[in-house]
Each structure stands twice: as structure tokens, then as C-alpha cells.
């Protein structure tokens, strides 16, 4: 907050002082980084790549990652790079990737690029994630790779399982970031593990939700709306009703396009929890 406030004050002072020639780019830079915190710098011989996230860290599950590339020589931020990335988990026996989006420029004039990565498992003492970033600037190709910290999340935010169709799926919690006692807009990503390196979003599935409070008799909430795929962002959207603060377990069922349950159980008196679920606490 202090950081932001200082910037805002600085910009206000600037705009006051140079009101005739105030530069839009200054304002934009401040806006670009609003609510973002840098958590990593990856350096190669030519550039410094700064990685940002809301929380200032990565964790197991769905992560929104912003980055910008600074030219070491000029100190300027590159505005016209084309970027791809490849997160890799180095396990003792094998190496695999995870679901990820492309990396897109946020605004034409800005310096910030953004994408999402779903880390389905955390690092541990012997196994780790690294992130390889390949980018081209004005036809010249560059690359940078670094180990990144992906600790386990405190609450379950992602679940990996084999469906009844024998395919492997990853379901990741995206929204709400800041749950409220209200009807929240809920967003989830559903990915299929086609290979060790390919995890595309799946289409036309359905995610049923049943939020419960295990610490309070496993009671639920009314008027939830099961999640269906949005045509625009391809994620699954629905409504999550939370009637009080506390720890909620969102029990899930994944249904395919023909409404066949691939994984997860409906909650009854005898089945207090589904085998796939998320947790949120607030």
C-alpha cells in the first residue's frame, strides 16, 4: 500500500508540475504494476525478466503471472517482445510440464505481459519447478531459465485425478480471489493431461459444486450455480454462495459433455465429502 501511495503521490506531483507535458506512459507504468508485487528476476546476458504476482509469490494451483523485460544495456522495458514459456517439474524419475496459457501483452503501450500457469504439484526437497522463457525482439531470439519457488498451498486449490474415462484431468480454482459472505462469481480451469507436456483446456464439460463447512456439521449453502464453460475465456463459470466466513470445502463433481460423472461424488449423510474438492478460508 505504501508503495502504491507513494507512486500515486509522485504521479500527482508530476502531473501538477508538468501539467502541459505530462506523459501518459508514466501514469501507465504506475497503473500496470498496481496491486502487483515482484517475486523473481530471471537474468540472462542481455535482459532482466521481472516476474510479478498479486501475492508476491507463486504457490501450488492456478497462478496469474505478469512479467516485463528490461534491456540491460539501455535500462528500457521492451514493449514489442513475443514470448512463450515452459514450466517444468523436475522429478526424480521424470520431467513434466503443467497447464499454462500463452503470454500476452496487456496493453499496446504498456510493458507488461501476462499469462497463467497451473502448478498441479508443489516443489519438495528433491523435486523442483523451473521456468524457461523464450522471447524474440525484432526478430532476434533470446531465452532465459530459472528455478522458481512453488510451495504447497495452505488450502487445496488444485486437484489432479484420473476420470472414469481413464483420462487424467487437472481442475484448478481461479476465482474468487477474495471470497465474501455473498454470492461469489466462481471460476475454475479444467485441463486434460494429453501428455507430459500438453495440458489443454477441455471444452463443454460441467463442474458441479457443493460448498460445505466441515467444522459446522457439514452444512451447505443455497442457490449455488454449477460451473459451465464460457465461450470467451474458456474457463468454467458459476456462482458460489457462502453464508458465513470460515473454512469452506467446495466439493466437486466433474461431468463430461454427455453429463457422465468422470470424478467426484454427490454429498449425502453417508458421503460427507467428495474425492475432489477445493478449500477456501476467509
Amino acid at each position, binding site marked *: 500500500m505504501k508503495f502504491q501511495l507513494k507512486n500515486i503521490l509522485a504521479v500527482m506531483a508530476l502531473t501538477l508540475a508538468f501539467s502541459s507535458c505530462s506523459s501518459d506512459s508514466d501514469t501507465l507504468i504506475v497503473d500496470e504494476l498496481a496491486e502487483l508485487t515482484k517475486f523473481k528476476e530471471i537474468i540472462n546476458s542481455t535482459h532482466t525478466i521481472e516476474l510479478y504476482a498479486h501475492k508476491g509469490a507463486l504457490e501450488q494451483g492456478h497462478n496469474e503471472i505478469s512479467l516485463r523485460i528490461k534491456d540491460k544495456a539501455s535500462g528500457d522495458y521492451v514493449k514489442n517482445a513475443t514470448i512463450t514459456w515452459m514450466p517444468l517439474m523436475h522429478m526424480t524419475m521424470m520431467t513434466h510440464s503443467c497447464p499454462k496459457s500463452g503470454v500476452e501483452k496487456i496493453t499496446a503501450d504498456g510493458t507488461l505481459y501476462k499469462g497463467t500457469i497451473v502448478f498441479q504439484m508443489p516443489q519438495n526437497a528433491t523435486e523442483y519447478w523451473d521456468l524457461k522463457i523464450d522471447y524474440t525482439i525484432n526478430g532476434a531470439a533470446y531465452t532465459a531459465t530459472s528455478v522458481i519457488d512453488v510451495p504447497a498451498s495452505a488450502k487445496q486449490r488444485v486437484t489432479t485425478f484420473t476420470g472414469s474415462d481413464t483420462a487424467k484431468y487437472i481442475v484448478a480454482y481461479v476465482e474468487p480471489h477474495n471470497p*465474501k*459472505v*455473498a*454470492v461469489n462469481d466462481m471460476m475454475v480451469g479444467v485441463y486434460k493431461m494429453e501428455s507430459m507436456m500438453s495440458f489443454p483446456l477441455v471444452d463443454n464439460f460441467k463442474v458441479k459444486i457443493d460448498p460445505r*463447512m466441515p*467444522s*459446522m*456439521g457439514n*452444512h*451447505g*449453502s*443455497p*442457490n449455488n450455480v454449477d460451473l459451465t464453460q464460457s465461450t470467451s475465456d474458456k474457463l468454467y463459470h458459476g456462482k458460489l*454462495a*457462502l*453464508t*458465513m*466466513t*470460515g*473454512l469452506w470445502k467446495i466439493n466437486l463433481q466433474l461431468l463430461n459433455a454427455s453429463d457422465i460423472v468422470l470424478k467426484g461424488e454427490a454429498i449425502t449423510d453417508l458421503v460427507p465429502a467428495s474425492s475432489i474438492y477445493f478449500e477456501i*478460508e*476467509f
Partner: protein
Amino acid sequence: MYWQQSYWPFCNFSIMKKKLYGFVLLYFTSIPLFAQDQVTDTVVPKTLKEVIVIGKKTQLYQQQNKPLAAVEEYLQQSGKVGMIKRGSYAWEPILNNMTTERTLITIDGMRVFGACTDKMDPITSYVEISNLSEATITSGQQGGNHGATIGGSIDLKRSRSGFVNSGWDVLINSGFESNSNQKILGSAVNYANNRFYIDTDFMYRDAENYTAGNNQEVLFSQFRKFNISATSGFSFDENKMLEASLIYDKATDVGYPALPMDVSLAEALITSLKFEYVPKASNIKNWETKIYYNTITHRMDDTKRPFVPIHMDMPGWSDTYGFYSKAKGVFKSHHFTVDLNSFYNRSVAEMTMYPSDPNESLMFMFTWPDVRTLYNGLFVEDSILLNSQSSLKFSVSAANHSNVIANDLGLESLQIFYPTMKASKNRILKSISSNYTYNKNGFQYGFGLAYGERAPSVSEGYGFYLFNSFDRYDYIGNPELRNEKSSEANAFIGFRTKKLSTKISSSYFHISNYIVGKPTENMIPMTIGASGIKIYSALNYATIFNTDLDIEYQFDMNFRWAGQLVYSYGQDYEKENLPFISPLRYSASFQYKVEKFSSEISVQGNAVHAQYSLFYGEKRTPDYAILNFASSYAFQVDHSKWYVKAGAENILDQYYTTFSDWNAIPRKGINFFLNISFGL
């Protein structure tokens, strides 16, 4: 029953509205008609209200069977009043078989709202008998001058010395009850002269668990409370006076054996400032304006219960600011009252649950989402003396009632159930009533018709997961409820001679949009062990009927007999029984009095509660009868007056429970009491 038949003609509600219009027309035609009839002002029109005298502090003992009884025990002497009991403290008055939402209980015209979502703190629990001089019970719409009501009103009147030259007056009250070991200690210090008076009193009660019949202890039925109050008036002109009044009441460690939780604190501060003006030689005889403020804090407590599935805090707060300005006047044969009244109430209640894992986040919700209620009403009443025997009375009122949810979290919580609901809701409430009374040579009768509306209560409109331990459902308020509308017919007939006094009075209510909780499918209750969720909604209509017969007979100077018989019924439009409808109930007492000694034996009982409502969680309760006895003696030692009263209640130590005992908790077994008062 014969008296029912005699009133049926007034109960035809298909033509109710037409009749009402008829009465309005009658009113306007009556003005020129009866205005010519010059009647002296000294004759005051009779009203249908019932007054229970509690007594001036100095004579507390003179009226009652048990002088230091709780306010509730005084009130239930009326055939129109019953009490829902959740323990031995803070009983909820029901008037004409209707609970708090449908009735109006005021303290000297002031609106006070309990701060408990589970109705553990009716207004009557925040006053003491020592604060009060009388309670005026008015049935139906005639009780609508302090706000909207369906069943009627109870106005608790503060006691005051008035501008009499009585000087200092000190009284000490003390009492003991063997059952529950209740210790009562009170004092009153009053001073009055012809320009100034101040009345102060203090009362302290401390009771342990009581035992039901057969010596069965009722756990968690203890309570402790104290109450201080002061009223002071100053006459700064011979016809203008100012009065300030204050009540502070604090109850701690109150057990509610019928509920899953107790109360650690119920605290009220009730204040007012009144200006009264008695114009000389004017049509306006009295003009009274009062501003008031009261604040209530209520904390439920489950820490003393041996087994709770999850520990929770449930505090509630209710603050009310209000005013009224009431003028009474006489114009020819018209005795009129105009009452402009407003209040602004803020009701907040919350619930915090503590998970067994202390690292987990607390579970928090608003059970009353900071609901602000603004009420502005105008009430006009005119009593017209037709002649020396009969009078007509009309009243109309209109009010604006608005609710706003001031807390966003609370609003968004309710929007889970009502996605399109707005934070505010405005309602117009109307009421009209007309009554005719006749009184000649001890024979009197009267009848009336009325129509009135009420807004849903805070719980009914905005409650969020309120657990009702009676039917074991979680209740959700419904902000989209329509106003409840009551059409009402009432009648009474009485006869009085020097020795005999009899009166039967009846009220019949046809209530449309009758608000009740309806179970919903596929919704999971929050409370551990609850059966489901009920959402407040409206029945097409319900009908409630109440009739009571009072008889008194004075055999001679020494012997007096009094009896009361009450019959009620209540059904919804599908002929299903409503809850808390009294079965046939009766009481009779025989009193012997000679000089300063008096003795009384009384019996009271219920028939079987056969018309119980399974749907609302009621069970059949058997009939019962209990026997009470009391004796008193007054004497003087030097200049101090002493008064001793001793007695026994439920002498036969019956184990019993009644229709209005929450979750069928048993009532007190045998109880010996001793009240000693002395005044200087």
C-alpha cells in the same frame, strides 16, 4: 358455547370491507347527527381496554396475590394475555393468542425492541413491577395508537407520585421464594411536593434453579437481575410540566432450560423526556409530547452447557430513538385524540462460531443485518357520546414504515436467497376501527369492527439462519413479504350489580397474508441437528378467536369469589391449527378479608391441549390444575407500616407443562413465598 353464537353475526368476513366502509360513512354522518346532542363533558366514553393495576409503589402489596411477582405474572391475570415460557425468566407475552410480532408492547407509549433473535428478551423483561403503576391491555386495532398491531397492545405505565404534597416516602420490599431460592430485595424512595416530584426505586432478584413437581430440578433455570429507575417531574407553570424518566435494567446469568443457550447479559437503558401541557379553557384538554431513547444489549451464552456441538457467541443490539406528540380534546360530544408518533430503530445481531481447531478462521455471520426501521404514523381517534348510555368510537391511522439494511455484508448475505433484493423497502400501514358501547344500570355491551395492517418484524423480514428450537428449523427472513392484514370483530357484554360483576368479551381476527415459516426443499440447515430451513412466507389467511368470561361475586364484606374462563381457537385457511393457541383455561379464587388480614385460595388450570399444531412443533399437553394459597397481614409499629404476605403456589406439587411452555419444559412445583414490605 352460547356466547360464541351470539357473536357470529359479526364474523362474516366476506362482507367485512363493505361493513368497514359502512362504518366510515356512519362516522361522517354521525358528526352532524350527534353533535346536536349536548352531553356534559364529565361523562367519558367507555373503552374496551382492560387495566391491570400493579399499584403505586407505596401500596404495591394491596392489590395482588403475590406483591413481588414478576411483571409477567401480573399481566397473565388478563384473559387476553398468555405467556410463552422458556425458563423462569423473561416470559414472552401473547395477546389474543398472538406473539410479539403481532402485538405492541410499550412502556409509557415508548417503543422498545428486544435485541435477541430468539425472543429471549421481551420488553416486559426489562422492567420491574416497582417501575410500573398499571398495564393497559387493549385488544385489536383500538390499541394502535402507538404503532401498528394486529392482536392489540399492552402499555406499561410508569408509576409516579405526581404533584402532591406528600414529602418523603421510603419503602423497603423483600421477598423469598423457596422454590428456586429466589431472594428479592427492593427499595423505593420518593419525594413529592406541589411543584416537583422524584420517584426512585431499586429491585434485585437472585434465583437458582427451580424444581418442577415431584422435586425434579430444572437445570439452567437460574437468573439474577437488578433494576433501577427514576422518574422526576417539574411543574414550571401551573399547567405545564416536564418529566424525565430512566430505567436501567441488567440481568446476568439467566438460564433458559427450554433453549440450547443461556444469556450472560441482557441490559437495557430506557430514557425519556416528556413535556405536558394542559391548556386552560380550550378544546384541547391535554397535550403531551415525549422524546425517548433506549438501548439494549443482549448476549447469549452456551459456555455453561455440558454439551454443545460448536461453541458460539450470539450478541444482539437494539437502539431506538422515538417521539410522540399526543393531544386530547373535547369538542361538544366528541372526545378526540390525535397522536403523531415516530421511531427509528437499529437492530443488529451476529453469530460467531468457534471451530474445534483453533487455527481455523472463525465463522461469522449477521443474523440481523443492521436493519434500520423508520416509522412515522398518525393516529386519530374520536369518541362520540351519543347520549348518557351509549357512545361510538372511531379511529384511523396511517403510517409509513421503511426498512433499510445498513450493512453490506448483511445485505449480500440475504442476496444469496434474494438476488434482486434492494437494501431498502417502504411500506404504508393503515388501520381503521369503530366501536359502539352501551351502558345502563350496570348492563353494558359493545361491539366493533376493525381493519389493520402490520409490517413483518426484523426477524421475519431479514433474519438469517435463526434457529427455532421449538420446531427445530433454521428460519430465513423474507424481505418480499407483503403486509399482514387483519379484519377484526369484537364484542362484549357485561352485567354489574353491587355484588355481582360479569363480563364476556370476544375478539375474532381474520388475518390475510398470515406470516409463518414454510419449509423449503433441498436447503441444508446451518444449525447442527436442525431438521431443515423454513423461509418466512404468507398463508392465504388464518383466523384467531379469543373469548374470556370474568365473574366476580362479593358475598358480603368479607368473602369474595372470582372466576375466569378463557376459550380460544386459531386455524389457518386449510383448517390446520396455529401454534400457541390456548386450550380452554380457567381460574377461580376465593378471598376472605377482615380488617387488615386477608387470605385467598385459588385454583387455575387448562383443559387438554388437543388442538395442537404438529407442523409448528407442538405436542399434546395434558390438562392440569394447581392450587394456590396466600395470606397477608398489615400492621403498624410506631410510625412504620408493615405488610407481610406468605403463601404457597402449586400446593399439591403437580408436575405439569402447558401449551405455552417452550419445548414442554415443566413448570414450578410447590413454592412457598414470603413478601415483607415496610414503609417509613
